[in-house]
Protein backbone atom coordinates (compact mmCIF):
# COMPACT_ATOMS: atom_id res chain seq x y z
CA UNK A 1 0.00 0.00 0.00
CA UNK A 2 1.50 3.23 -1.09
CA UNK A 3 1.42 6.65 0.42
CA UNK A 4 -2.07 7.94 -0.10
CA UNK A 5 -3.26 11.44 0.23
CA UNK A 6 -0.72 14.13 0.76
CA UNK A 7 -2.00 17.67 0.82
CA UNK A 8 -0.92 19.70 -2.12
CA UNK A 9 2.15 21.72 -1.26
CA UNK A 10 1.10 24.98 0.34
CA UNK A 11 2.72 26.99 -2.43
CA UNK A 12 0.25 25.89 -5.07
CA UNK A 13 -2.77 26.98 -3.11
CA UNK A 14 -1.18 30.36 -2.64
CA UNK A 15 -0.06 33.08 -4.97
CA UNK A 16 0.89 30.78 -7.83
CA UNK A 17 -2.53 29.25 -8.13
CA UNK A 18 -4.19 32.61 -7.91
CA UNK A 19 -1.98 33.99 -10.61
CA UNK A 20 -2.75 31.01 -12.83
CA UNK A 21 -6.44 31.65 -12.19
CA UNK A 22 -6.15 35.25 -13.26
CA UNK A 23 -4.40 34.25 -16.43
CA UNK A 24 -7.12 31.76 -17.30
CA UNK A 25 -9.70 34.52 -17.10
CA UNK A 26 -8.09 36.12 -20.14
CA UNK A 27 -8.12 33.10 -22.41
CA UNK A 28 -11.69 33.50 -23.65
CA UNK A 29 -11.67 37.27 -24.17
CA UNK A 30 -8.29 37.19 -25.88
CA UNK A 31 -9.44 34.45 -28.27
CA UNK A 32 -12.61 36.39 -29.03
CA UNK A 33 -10.71 39.60 -29.69
CA UNK A 34 -8.22 37.82 -31.90
CA UNK A 35 -11.02 36.29 -33.97
CA UNK A 36 -12.70 39.64 -34.31
CA UNK A 37 -9.53 41.43 -35.36
CA UNK A 38 -8.73 38.74 -37.90
CA UNK A 39 -12.26 38.83 -39.34
CA UNK A 40 -12.00 42.58 -39.68
CA UNK A 41 -8.63 42.53 -41.32
CA UNK A 42 -9.62 39.75 -43.66
CA UNK A 43 -12.49 41.92 -44.79
CA UNK A 44 -15.15 39.48 -43.60
CA UNK A 45 -16.98 42.37 -41.98
CA UNK A 46 -16.85 45.95 -43.14
CA UNK A 47 -14.79 48.08 -40.82
CA UNK A 48 -17.43 50.79 -40.73
CA UNK A 49 -19.97 48.27 -39.48
CA UNK A 50 -17.73 46.52 -37.00
CA UNK A 51 -14.35 48.19 -36.75
CA UNK A 52 -11.52 45.93 -35.59
CA UNK A 53 -10.51 46.04 -31.92
CA UNK A 54 -7.44 47.99 -32.92
CA UNK A 55 -9.62 50.79 -34.31
CA UNK A 56 -11.71 50.79 -31.14
CA UNK A 57 -8.59 50.96 -29.03
CA UNK A 58 -7.30 53.78 -31.22
CA UNK A 59 -10.49 55.73 -30.62
CA UNK A 60 -10.34 55.08 -26.89
CA UNK A 61 -6.72 56.17 -26.77
CA UNK A 62 -7.44 59.43 -28.54
CA UNK A 63 -10.44 60.11 -26.31
CA UNK A 64 -8.32 59.32 -23.31
CA UNK A 65 -5.64 61.76 -24.40
CA UNK A 66 -8.18 64.51 -24.97
CA UNK A 67 -9.36 63.97 -21.42
CA UNK A 68 -12.89 63.46 -22.65
CA UNK A 69 -12.97 59.79 -21.73
CA UNK A 70 -12.07 60.45 -18.14
CA UNK A 71 -15.06 62.77 -17.84
CA UNK A 72 -17.43 60.27 -19.39
CA UNK A 73 -16.25 57.48 -17.14
CA UNK A 74 -16.19 59.62 -14.02
CA UNK A 75 -19.66 61.01 -14.61
CA UNK A 76 -21.13 57.58 -15.26
CA UNK A 77 -19.42 56.01 -12.28
CA UNK A 78 -20.70 58.75 -10.02
CA UNK A 79 -24.23 58.34 -11.31
CA UNK A 80 -24.16 54.58 -11.00
CA UNK A 81 -22.78 54.73 -7.49
CA UNK A 82 -25.31 57.34 -6.39
CA UNK A 83 -28.24 55.52 -7.98
CA UNK A 84 -27.08 52.14 -6.79
CA UNK A 85 -26.70 53.34 -3.21
CA UNK A 86 -30.10 55.00 -3.26
CA UNK A 87 -31.79 51.96 -4.76
CA UNK A 88 -30.21 49.58 -2.30
CA UNK A 89 -30.95 51.86 0.64
CA UNK A 90 -34.63 51.93 -0.30
CA UNK A 91 -34.84 48.24 -1.13
CA UNK A 92 -33.48 47.19 2.25
CA UNK A 93 -36.40 48.31 4.42
CA UNK A 94 -38.93 47.33 1.76
CA UNK A 95 -37.49 43.84 1.49
CA UNK A 96 -37.28 43.42 5.26
CA UNK A 97 -40.92 44.46 5.64
CA UNK A 98 -42.14 42.23 2.83
CA UNK A 99 -39.89 39.38 3.91
CA UNK A 100 -41.17 39.46 7.47
CA UNK A 101 -44.77 40.51 7.33
CA UNK A 102 -47.28 38.64 5.20
CA UNK A 103 -49.47 41.72 5.40
CA UNK A 104 -46.75 43.98 4.01
CA UNK A 105 -46.16 41.36 1.37
CA UNK A 106 -49.81 41.35 0.30
CA UNK A 107 -49.92 45.13 0.34
CA UNK A 108 -46.68 46.06 -1.37
CA UNK A 109 -45.33 43.14 -3.30
CA UNK A 110 -47.86 42.97 -6.15
CA UNK A 111 -47.49 46.67 -6.89
CA UNK A 112 -43.71 46.50 -6.75
CA UNK A 113 -43.69 43.45 -9.00
CA UNK A 114 -45.79 45.36 -11.52
CA UNK A 115 -43.55 48.43 -11.38
CA UNK A 116 -40.59 46.12 -11.84
CA UNK A 117 -42.03 45.27 -15.23
CA UNK A 118 -41.65 48.81 -16.55
CA UNK A 119 -38.68 48.87 -18.88
CA UNK A 120 -35.97 51.44 -18.44
CA UNK A 121 -36.80 53.18 -21.68
CA UNK A 122 -40.40 53.63 -20.60
CA UNK A 123 -39.29 55.44 -17.47
CA UNK A 124 -37.49 58.12 -19.44
CA UNK A 125 -40.52 60.22 -20.44
CA UNK A 126 -42.11 59.82 -17.02
CA UNK A 127 -39.01 60.89 -15.12
CA UNK A 128 -38.44 63.75 -17.50
CA UNK A 129 -41.91 64.92 -16.65
CA UNK A 130 -41.51 64.66 -12.92
CA UNK A 131 -37.93 65.68 -12.42
CA UNK A 132 -36.78 67.62 -15.46
CA UNK A 133 -33.47 66.98 -17.13
CA UNK A 134 -30.77 67.38 -14.53
CA UNK A 135 -29.08 64.74 -12.42
CA UNK A 136 -32.15 63.84 -10.38
CA UNK A 137 -34.03 61.84 -13.04
CA UNK A 138 -30.87 60.05 -14.11
CA UNK A 139 -29.93 58.98 -10.61
CA UNK A 140 -33.54 58.05 -9.91
CA UNK A 141 -33.73 55.81 -12.95
CA UNK A 142 -30.54 54.04 -11.96
CA UNK A 143 -31.89 53.67 -8.43
CA UNK A 144 -35.04 52.07 -9.84
CA UNK A 145 -32.86 49.65 -11.75
CA UNK A 146 -30.79 48.71 -8.72
CA UNK A 147 -33.80 48.52 -6.42
CA UNK A 148 -35.51 45.47 -7.81
CA UNK A 149 -32.80 42.81 -8.03
CA UNK A 150 -31.70 43.62 -4.51
CA UNK A 151 -35.28 43.69 -3.26
CA UNK A 152 -36.18 40.41 -4.92
CA UNK A 153 -33.14 38.54 -3.72
CA UNK A 154 -33.30 39.89 -0.21
CA UNK A 155 -36.96 38.94 0.13
CA UNK A 156 -36.15 35.47 -1.18
CA UNK A 157 -33.21 35.27 1.22
CA UNK A 158 -35.31 36.23 4.20
CA UNK A 159 -38.06 33.84 3.19
CA UNK A 160 -35.53 31.09 2.90
CA UNK A 161 -33.98 31.49 6.34
CA UNK A 162 -34.06 28.40 8.48
CA UNK A 163 -36.93 28.79 10.90
CA UNK A 164 -34.86 26.98 13.52
CA UNK A 165 -32.38 29.81 13.75
CA UNK A 166 -35.08 32.41 14.14
CA UNK A 167 -36.51 30.39 17.00
CA UNK A 168 -33.16 30.58 18.74
CA UNK A 169 -33.31 34.36 18.53
CA UNK A 170 -36.79 34.39 19.95
CA UNK A 171 -36.04 32.17 22.93
CA UNK A 172 -32.84 34.08 23.63
CA UNK A 173 -35.06 37.09 24.21
CA UNK A 174 -33.96 39.10 21.18
CA UNK A 175 -36.26 41.90 20.08
CA UNK A 176 -37.73 41.88 16.61
CA UNK A 177 -35.12 44.42 15.59
CA UNK A 178 -32.30 42.35 17.02
CA UNK A 179 -33.59 39.29 15.23
CA UNK A 180 -33.53 41.21 11.99
CA UNK A 181 -30.06 42.52 12.63
CA UNK A 182 -28.42 39.41 14.04
CA UNK A 183 -30.25 36.57 12.35
CA UNK A 184 -32.32 37.54 9.34
CA UNK A 185 -29.91 39.86 7.62
CA UNK A 186 -26.81 37.70 8.08
CA UNK A 187 -28.84 34.63 7.18
CA UNK A 188 -30.10 36.30 4.04
CA UNK A 189 -26.63 37.64 3.27
CA UNK A 190 -25.76 35.14 0.55
CA UNK A 191 -28.94 36.02 -1.32
CA UNK A 192 -28.53 39.70 -0.57
CA UNK A 193 -25.04 39.67 -2.06
CA UNK A 194 -26.30 37.98 -5.19
CA UNK A 195 -28.94 40.70 -5.29
CA UNK A 196 -26.32 43.37 -4.78
CA UNK A 197 -24.35 42.08 -7.74
CA UNK A 198 -27.46 41.83 -9.87
CA UNK A 199 -28.47 45.32 -8.74
CA UNK A 200 -25.10 46.74 -9.67
CA UNK A 201 -25.43 45.14 -13.06
CA UNK A 202 -28.90 46.56 -13.49
CA UNK A 203 -27.64 49.99 -12.45
CA UNK A 204 -25.16 49.91 -15.32
CA UNK A 205 -27.82 48.67 -17.73
CA UNK A 206 -30.18 51.44 -16.68
CA UNK A 207 -27.40 54.00 -16.98
CA UNK A 208 -27.73 53.97 -20.73
CA UNK A 209 -31.42 54.80 -20.54
CA UNK A 210 -30.73 57.36 -17.85
CA UNK A 211 -28.22 59.12 -20.01
CA UNK A 212 -30.73 59.38 -22.78
CA UNK A 213 -32.18 62.14 -20.63
CA UNK A 214 -30.61 65.30 -21.93
CA UNK A 215 -27.05 64.35 -21.18
CA UNK A 216 -23.86 65.28 -22.91
CA UNK A 217 -21.56 63.25 -20.75
CA UNK A 218 -21.30 59.70 -19.56
CA UNK A 219 -20.75 56.36 -21.24
CA UNK A 220 -24.43 55.83 -21.91
CA UNK A 221 -24.51 59.14 -23.71
CA UNK A 222 -21.40 58.18 -25.62
CA UNK A 223 -23.09 55.00 -26.76
CA UNK A 224 -26.27 56.71 -27.94
CA UNK A 225 -24.33 59.57 -29.42
CA UNK A 226 -22.10 57.19 -31.32
CA UNK A 227 -25.12 55.44 -32.78
CA UNK A 228 -26.78 58.72 -33.67
CA UNK A 229 -23.59 59.70 -35.46
CA UNK A 230 -23.04 56.31 -37.10
CA UNK A 231 -19.68 56.04 -35.39
CA UNK A 232 -19.23 52.31 -34.83
CA UNK A 233 -15.85 52.84 -33.16
CA UNK A 234 -17.43 55.09 -30.53
CA UNK A 235 -20.28 52.63 -30.01
CA UNK A 236 -17.92 49.71 -29.54
CA UNK A 237 -15.60 51.74 -27.36
CA UNK A 238 -18.50 52.63 -25.11
CA UNK A 239 -19.68 49.02 -24.99
CA UNK A 240 -16.19 47.90 -24.11
CA UNK A 241 -15.90 50.41 -21.31
CA UNK A 242 -19.35 49.59 -19.99
CA UNK A 243 -18.51 45.91 -19.96
CA UNK A 244 -15.18 46.49 -18.24
CA UNK A 245 -16.57 48.85 -15.65
CA UNK A 246 -19.49 46.52 -14.99
CA UNK A 247 -17.02 43.70 -14.55
CA UNK A 248 -14.84 45.82 -12.30
CA UNK A 249 -17.62 46.74 -9.90
CA UNK A 250 -18.93 43.22 -10.00
CA UNK A 251 -15.45 42.08 -9.12
CA UNK A 252 -15.41 44.33 -6.07
CA UNK A 253 -18.71 42.90 -4.92
CA UNK A 254 -17.46 39.40 -5.58
CA UNK A 255 -14.45 39.97 -3.36
CA UNK A 256 -16.81 41.33 -0.73
CA UNK A 257 -18.96 38.25 -1.16
CA UNK A 258 -16.05 35.91 -0.71
CA UNK A 259 -14.99 37.73 2.42
CA UNK A 260 -18.39 38.07 4.00
CA UNK A 261 -19.36 34.46 3.38
CA UNK A 262 -16.26 32.79 4.73
CA UNK A 263 -18.33 31.35 7.54
CA UNK A 264 -20.26 29.16 5.19
CA UNK A 265 -19.73 25.44 5.14
CA UNK A 266 -20.70 25.18 1.53
CA UNK A 267 -19.36 23.95 -1.76
CA UNK A 268 -17.75 27.28 -2.54
CA UNK A 269 -16.00 27.68 0.76
CA UNK A 270 -14.99 24.02 0.78
CA UNK A 271 -13.14 24.70 -2.45
CA UNK A 272 -11.61 27.89 -1.11
CA UNK A 273 -10.42 26.21 2.08
CA UNK A 274 -8.85 23.30 0.24
Amino acid at each position, binding site marked *: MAQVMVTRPAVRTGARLRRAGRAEAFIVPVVLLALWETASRAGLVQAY*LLPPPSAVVAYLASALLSGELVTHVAVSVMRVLAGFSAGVALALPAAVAVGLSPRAERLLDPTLQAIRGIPSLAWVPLL*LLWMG*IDEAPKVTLIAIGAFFPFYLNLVAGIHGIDRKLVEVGRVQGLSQLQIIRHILLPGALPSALTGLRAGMNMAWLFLVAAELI*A*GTRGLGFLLTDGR*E*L*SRADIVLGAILLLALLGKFFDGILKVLENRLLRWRDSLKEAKADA
Partner: protein
Amino acid sequence: GRSGGAAARPPEIRLDYAYYSPLSLVIKHHGWMEEEFQADGLPVKWVLSLGSNKAIEYLASESADFTSTAGAAALLARSNGIPLQVVYIYSKPEWTALVTRKDSPIRTVADLKGKKVAATKGTDPYIFLLRALDTAGLSQSDIELVHLQHPDGKAALDRGEVDAWAGLDPHMAQANLESGARLFFRNPDFNTYGFLNVRQSYADRYPEIVKRVLKVYERARRWALEHPEETARILAEQAKMSPEVARQVLTRNDFRNPIPGEEHRRGLAAASRILVKEGLIKPGVDPEKVIGELIRPEFARAVVQP
Protein backbone atom coordinates in the same frame (compact mmCIF):
# COMPACT_ATOMS: atom_id res chain seq x y z
CA GLY B 1 -48.48 87.45 -15.06
CA ARG B 2 -49.08 87.70 -18.78
CA SER B 3 -49.25 91.46 -18.70
CA GLY B 4 -45.55 91.72 -17.98
CA GLY B 5 -44.61 92.49 -21.57
CA ALA B 6 -41.03 93.50 -21.92
CA ALA B 7 -40.50 93.44 -18.18
CA ALA B 8 -41.36 89.73 -17.84
CA ARG B 9 -38.32 87.51 -17.94
CA PRO B 10 -37.71 83.86 -17.26
CA PRO B 11 -35.07 82.86 -14.74
CA GLU B 12 -32.87 81.43 -17.46
CA ILE B 13 -32.70 80.85 -21.19
CA ARG B 14 -33.09 77.16 -21.89
CA LEU B 15 -32.60 76.01 -25.44
CA ASP B 16 -31.38 72.96 -27.26
CA TYR B 17 -28.68 72.31 -29.75
CA ALA B 18 -28.73 69.44 -32.19
CA TYR B 19 -26.45 67.85 -34.70
CA TYR B 20 -29.23 68.31 -37.25
CA SER B 21 -29.35 72.09 -36.62
CA PRO B 22 -26.05 73.59 -37.77
CA LEU B 23 -27.13 77.07 -36.65
CA SER B 24 -27.54 75.93 -33.05
CA LEU B 25 -24.02 74.55 -33.18
CA VAL B 26 -22.67 77.79 -34.58
CA ILE B 27 -24.36 79.79 -31.80
CA LYS B 28 -23.12 77.46 -29.12
CA HIS B 29 -19.63 77.43 -30.59
CA HIS B 30 -19.35 81.21 -30.55
CA GLY B 31 -21.13 81.72 -27.26
CA TRP B 32 -23.45 84.25 -28.84
CA MET B 33 -26.47 83.34 -26.77
CA GLU B 34 -24.55 83.87 -23.55
CA GLU B 35 -23.27 87.12 -24.97
CA GLU B 36 -26.79 88.29 -25.76
CA PHE B 37 -28.15 87.72 -22.28
CA GLN B 38 -25.08 88.50 -20.25
CA ALA B 39 -26.11 92.04 -19.57
CA ASP B 40 -29.41 90.87 -18.10
CA GLY B 41 -27.66 88.38 -15.88
CA LEU B 42 -29.69 85.60 -17.47
CA PRO B 43 -27.87 82.29 -17.54
CA VAL B 44 -28.10 80.20 -20.68
CA LYS B 45 -28.68 76.47 -20.39
CA TRP B 46 -27.98 74.25 -23.36
CA VAL B 47 -29.59 70.84 -23.85
CA LEU B 48 -28.54 68.40 -26.51
CA SER B 49 -31.43 66.97 -28.51
CA LEU B 50 -30.60 63.65 -30.14
CA GLY B 51 -33.72 63.66 -32.27
CA SER B 52 -37.01 65.38 -32.85
CA ASN B 53 -38.98 63.29 -30.38
CA LYS B 54 -36.52 64.05 -27.59
CA ALA B 55 -36.64 67.75 -28.41
CA ILE B 56 -40.41 67.62 -28.13
CA GLU B 57 -40.25 65.79 -24.82
CA TYR B 58 -37.98 68.49 -23.42
CA LEU B 59 -40.30 71.19 -24.63
CA ALA B 60 -43.48 69.50 -23.43
CA SER B 61 -42.09 68.71 -19.99
CA GLU B 62 -40.88 72.34 -19.73
CA SER B 63 -37.31 71.21 -19.40
CA ALA B 64 -36.35 73.48 -22.31
CA ASP B 65 -38.04 76.45 -23.96
CA PHE B 66 -36.57 76.52 -27.47
CA THR B 67 -36.06 73.23 -29.27
CA SER B 68 -35.32 72.17 -32.81
CA THR B 69 -37.32 69.52 -34.63
CA ALA B 70 -38.36 68.43 -38.04
CA GLY B 71 -41.55 70.13 -39.16
CA ALA B 72 -43.52 66.90 -39.30
CA ALA B 73 -42.61 66.08 -35.70
CA ALA B 74 -43.84 69.47 -34.56
CA LEU B 75 -47.05 68.91 -36.50
CA LEU B 76 -47.60 65.50 -34.91
CA ALA B 77 -46.95 66.92 -31.46
CA ARG B 78 -49.33 69.82 -31.98
CA SER B 79 -52.00 67.50 -33.34
CA ASN B 80 -51.60 65.37 -30.20
CA GLY B 81 -52.29 68.39 -28.04
CA ILE B 82 -48.82 69.59 -27.17
CA PRO B 83 -49.21 73.38 -27.38
CA LEU B 84 -46.04 74.24 -29.27
CA GLN B 85 -45.50 76.78 -32.01
CA VAL B 86 -42.84 77.25 -34.63
CA VAL B 87 -41.26 80.68 -34.47
CA TYR B 88 -38.30 80.26 -36.79
CA ILE B 89 -37.06 78.04 -39.57
CA TYR B 90 -33.45 77.26 -38.89
CA SER B 91 -32.94 75.52 -42.19
CA LYS B 92 -34.54 74.01 -45.20
CA PRO B 93 -32.58 70.82 -45.02
CA GLU B 94 -32.44 68.05 -47.48
CA TRP B 95 -31.62 65.64 -44.75
CA THR B 96 -33.51 62.73 -46.14
CA ALA B 97 -33.53 60.85 -49.43
CA LEU B 98 -34.02 57.33 -50.69
CA VAL B 99 -30.81 55.35 -50.62
CA THR B 100 -29.74 52.05 -52.04
CA ARG B 101 -26.54 50.08 -52.33
CA LYS B 102 -23.92 50.98 -54.91
CA ASP B 103 -24.52 47.85 -56.98
CA SER B 104 -28.27 47.71 -56.59
CA PRO B 105 -30.45 47.54 -59.71
CA ILE B 106 -32.86 50.02 -58.17
CA ARG B 107 -32.80 53.27 -60.12
CA THR B 108 -36.17 54.90 -59.60
CA VAL B 109 -38.92 54.91 -57.06
CA ALA B 110 -40.99 52.65 -59.30
CA ASP B 111 -38.32 49.95 -58.89
CA LEU B 112 -39.22 49.75 -55.21
CA LYS B 113 -42.37 47.76 -55.90
CA GLY B 114 -42.31 44.59 -53.82
CA LYS B 115 -38.98 45.51 -52.25
CA LYS B 116 -37.95 45.80 -48.61
CA VAL B 117 -37.47 49.38 -47.52
CA ALA B 118 -36.25 50.50 -44.11
CA ALA B 119 -37.57 53.62 -42.36
CA THR B 120 -38.36 54.93 -38.90
CA LYS B 121 -42.08 55.41 -38.50
CA GLY B 122 -43.31 58.93 -37.87
CA THR B 123 -40.08 60.65 -38.84
CA ASP B 124 -39.23 62.80 -41.81
CA PRO B 125 -37.61 60.00 -43.81
CA TYR B 126 -40.78 57.97 -43.36
CA ILE B 127 -42.98 60.78 -44.67
CA PHE B 128 -40.48 61.36 -47.44
CA LEU B 129 -40.67 57.72 -48.45
CA LEU B 130 -44.45 57.76 -48.63
CA ARG B 131 -44.51 60.97 -50.63
CA ALA B 132 -41.88 59.58 -52.96
CA LEU B 133 -43.91 56.43 -53.49
CA ASP B 134 -46.86 58.61 -54.26
CA THR B 135 -44.95 60.27 -57.10
CA ALA B 136 -44.62 56.86 -58.73
CA GLY B 137 -48.22 55.95 -58.07
CA LEU B 138 -47.28 53.48 -55.35
CA SER B 139 -48.46 53.22 -51.77
CA GLN B 140 -47.09 51.69 -48.64
CA SER B 141 -48.74 48.37 -49.40
CA ASP B 142 -46.73 48.02 -52.59
CA ILE B 143 -43.48 47.72 -50.70
CA GLU B 144 -42.41 45.83 -47.61
CA LEU B 145 -41.75 48.48 -45.01
CA VAL B 146 -39.18 47.52 -42.36
CA HIS B 147 -39.19 49.64 -39.24
CA LEU B 148 -35.66 50.34 -38.14
CA GLN B 149 -34.00 53.14 -36.21
CA HIS B 150 -31.94 55.39 -38.45
CA PRO B 151 -28.50 53.92 -37.71
CA ASP B 152 -29.92 50.40 -37.89
CA GLY B 153 -31.45 51.14 -41.29
CA LYS B 154 -28.05 52.09 -42.60
CA ALA B 155 -26.52 48.85 -41.34
CA ALA B 156 -29.41 46.77 -42.67
CA LEU B 157 -29.01 48.31 -46.09
CA ASP B 158 -25.32 47.69 -46.13
CA ARG B 159 -25.80 44.05 -45.16
CA GLY B 160 -28.45 43.50 -47.80
CA GLU B 161 -31.19 42.92 -45.24
CA VAL B 162 -33.22 45.60 -47.04
CA ASP B 163 -33.16 46.79 -50.63
CA ALA B 164 -33.54 50.48 -49.91
CA TRP B 165 -33.56 52.85 -47.01
CA ALA B 166 -35.22 56.16 -46.35
CA GLY B 167 -32.01 57.67 -45.06
CA LEU B 168 -31.24 60.51 -42.74
CA ASP B 169 -28.14 62.62 -42.39
CA PRO B 170 -25.49 62.21 -41.15
CA HIS B 171 -26.00 58.43 -41.53
CA MET B 172 -26.86 58.95 -45.16
CA ALA B 173 -23.80 61.02 -45.95
CA GLN B 174 -21.70 58.49 -44.15
CA ALA B 175 -23.18 55.55 -46.04
CA ASN B 176 -22.49 57.43 -49.22
CA LEU B 177 -18.85 57.99 -48.34
CA GLU B 178 -18.18 54.62 -46.74
CA SER B 179 -19.80 52.16 -49.09
CA GLY B 180 -20.78 54.31 -52.03
CA ALA B 181 -24.48 54.04 -51.24
CA ARG B 182 -26.51 55.83 -53.88
CA LEU B 183 -29.14 58.51 -53.22
CA PHE B 184 -31.47 57.49 -56.02
CA PHE B 185 -34.39 59.76 -55.19
CA ARG B 186 -33.99 63.26 -53.88
CA ASN B 187 -36.42 66.11 -53.45
CA PRO B 188 -35.70 68.93 -51.00
CA ASP B 189 -39.35 69.95 -51.01
CA PHE B 190 -40.41 66.64 -49.55
CA ASN B 191 -38.47 67.41 -46.39
CA THR B 192 -40.46 69.23 -43.74
CA TYR B 193 -37.94 71.89 -42.74
CA GLY B 194 -36.08 72.51 -39.51
CA PHE B 195 -38.40 74.13 -36.99
CA LEU B 196 -37.39 76.08 -33.96
CA ASN B 197 -40.29 75.66 -31.53
CA VAL B 198 -41.47 77.22 -28.29
CA ARG B 199 -44.44 76.53 -26.07
CA GLN B 200 -47.35 78.81 -26.90
CA SER B 201 -47.63 80.05 -23.32
CA TYR B 202 -43.94 80.90 -23.30
CA ALA B 203 -44.24 82.93 -26.48
CA ASP B 204 -47.24 84.75 -25.06
CA ARG B 205 -45.50 85.52 -21.84
CA TYR B 206 -41.99 86.37 -23.02
CA PRO B 207 -42.30 87.79 -26.54
CA GLU B 208 -39.20 89.95 -26.09
CA ILE B 209 -37.12 86.99 -25.04
CA VAL B 210 -38.28 85.05 -28.06
CA LYS B 211 -37.30 87.92 -30.32
CA ARG B 212 -33.89 88.24 -28.77
CA VAL B 213 -33.24 84.51 -29.15
CA LEU B 214 -34.27 84.75 -32.78
CA LYS B 215 -31.94 87.71 -33.18
CA VAL B 216 -29.07 85.49 -32.20
CA TYR B 217 -30.27 82.83 -34.63
CA GLU B 218 -30.31 85.51 -37.32
CA ARG B 219 -26.76 86.42 -36.53
CA ALA B 220 -25.76 82.78 -36.87
CA ARG B 221 -27.68 82.36 -40.08
CA ARG B 222 -25.94 85.31 -41.70
CA TRP B 223 -22.60 84.14 -40.48
CA ALA B 224 -23.21 80.63 -41.78
CA LEU B 225 -24.17 81.95 -45.19
CA GLU B 226 -20.95 83.92 -45.28
CA HIS B 227 -18.67 81.28 -43.81
CA PRO B 228 -19.67 77.89 -45.23
CA GLU B 229 -16.20 76.38 -44.71
CA GLU B 230 -16.02 77.40 -41.10
CA THR B 231 -19.57 76.28 -40.52
CA ALA B 232 -18.64 72.87 -41.86
CA ARG B 233 -15.66 72.80 -39.54
CA ILE B 234 -17.84 73.63 -36.55
CA LEU B 235 -20.30 70.95 -37.56
CA ALA B 236 -17.55 68.38 -37.95
CA GLU B 237 -16.07 69.24 -34.61
CA GLN B 238 -19.23 69.53 -32.56
CA ALA B 239 -21.04 66.60 -34.13
CA LYS B 240 -17.95 64.40 -34.30
CA MET B 241 -18.38 64.00 -38.07
CA SER B 242 -15.55 63.62 -40.47
CA PRO B 243 -14.97 66.85 -42.45
CA GLU B 244 -16.21 65.22 -45.66
CA VAL B 245 -19.44 64.13 -44.07
CA ALA B 246 -19.93 67.54 -42.50
CA ARG B 247 -19.36 69.26 -45.83
CA GLN B 248 -21.79 67.00 -47.58
CA VAL B 249 -24.41 67.48 -44.87
CA LEU B 250 -23.99 71.22 -45.03
CA THR B 251 -24.45 71.40 -48.77
CA ARG B 252 -27.87 69.92 -48.18
CA ASN B 253 -28.90 72.75 -45.81
CA ASP B 254 -30.55 75.87 -47.16
CA PHE B 255 -30.56 78.76 -44.69
CA ARG B 256 -32.22 81.33 -46.93
CA ASN B 257 -35.80 81.56 -45.71
CA PRO B 258 -36.10 81.64 -41.91
CA ILE B 259 -39.60 83.07 -41.59
CA PRO B 260 -42.35 80.49 -41.10
CA GLY B 261 -44.88 81.09 -43.86
CA GLU B 262 -46.82 79.84 -46.80
CA GLU B 263 -44.06 77.59 -48.12
CA HIS B 264 -44.00 75.74 -44.83
CA ARG B 265 -47.76 75.64 -44.54
CA ARG B 266 -47.90 73.87 -47.89
CA GLY B 267 -45.15 71.49 -46.96
CA LEU B 268 -46.88 70.55 -43.75
CA ALA B 269 -50.24 70.20 -45.45
CA ALA B 270 -48.76 67.71 -47.90
CA ALA B 271 -47.13 65.81 -45.06
CA SER B 272 -50.31 65.86 -43.03
CA ARG B 273 -52.24 64.09 -45.79
CA ILE B 274 -49.83 61.19 -45.50
CA LEU B 275 -49.97 61.25 -41.73
CA VAL B 276 -53.74 61.17 -41.70
CA LYS B 277 -53.83 58.40 -44.25
CA GLU B 278 -51.42 56.33 -42.17
CA GLY B 279 -53.47 56.97 -39.05
CA LEU B 280 -50.59 58.74 -37.36
CA ILE B 281 -52.72 61.79 -36.76
CA LYS B 282 -55.63 60.91 -34.51
CA PRO B 283 -58.98 60.83 -36.30
CA GLY B 284 -61.08 63.88 -35.54
CA VAL B 285 -58.14 66.27 -35.71
CA ASP B 286 -58.30 68.88 -38.44
CA PRO B 287 -54.79 69.22 -39.90
CA GLU B 288 -55.45 72.58 -41.50
CA LYS B 289 -56.45 74.03 -38.18
CA VAL B 290 -53.48 72.49 -36.43
CA ILE B 291 -51.08 73.90 -38.98
CA GLY B 292 -52.68 77.28 -38.56
CA GLU B 293 -52.12 77.16 -34.82
CA LEU B 294 -48.62 75.83 -35.20
CA ILE B 295 -47.13 78.51 -37.39
CA ARG B 296 -46.41 81.81 -35.64
CA PRO B 297 -44.31 84.02 -37.89
CA GLU B 298 -44.62 87.33 -36.01
CA PHE B 299 -41.34 87.05 -34.09
CA ALA B 300 -39.28 86.07 -37.08
CA ARG B 301 -40.87 88.82 -39.14
CA ALA B 302 -39.88 91.36 -36.54
CA VAL B 303 -36.31 90.17 -36.37
CA VAL B 304 -35.32 89.11 -39.85
CA GLN B 305 -34.09 91.89 -42.06
CA PRO B 306 -34.39 91.11 -45.71
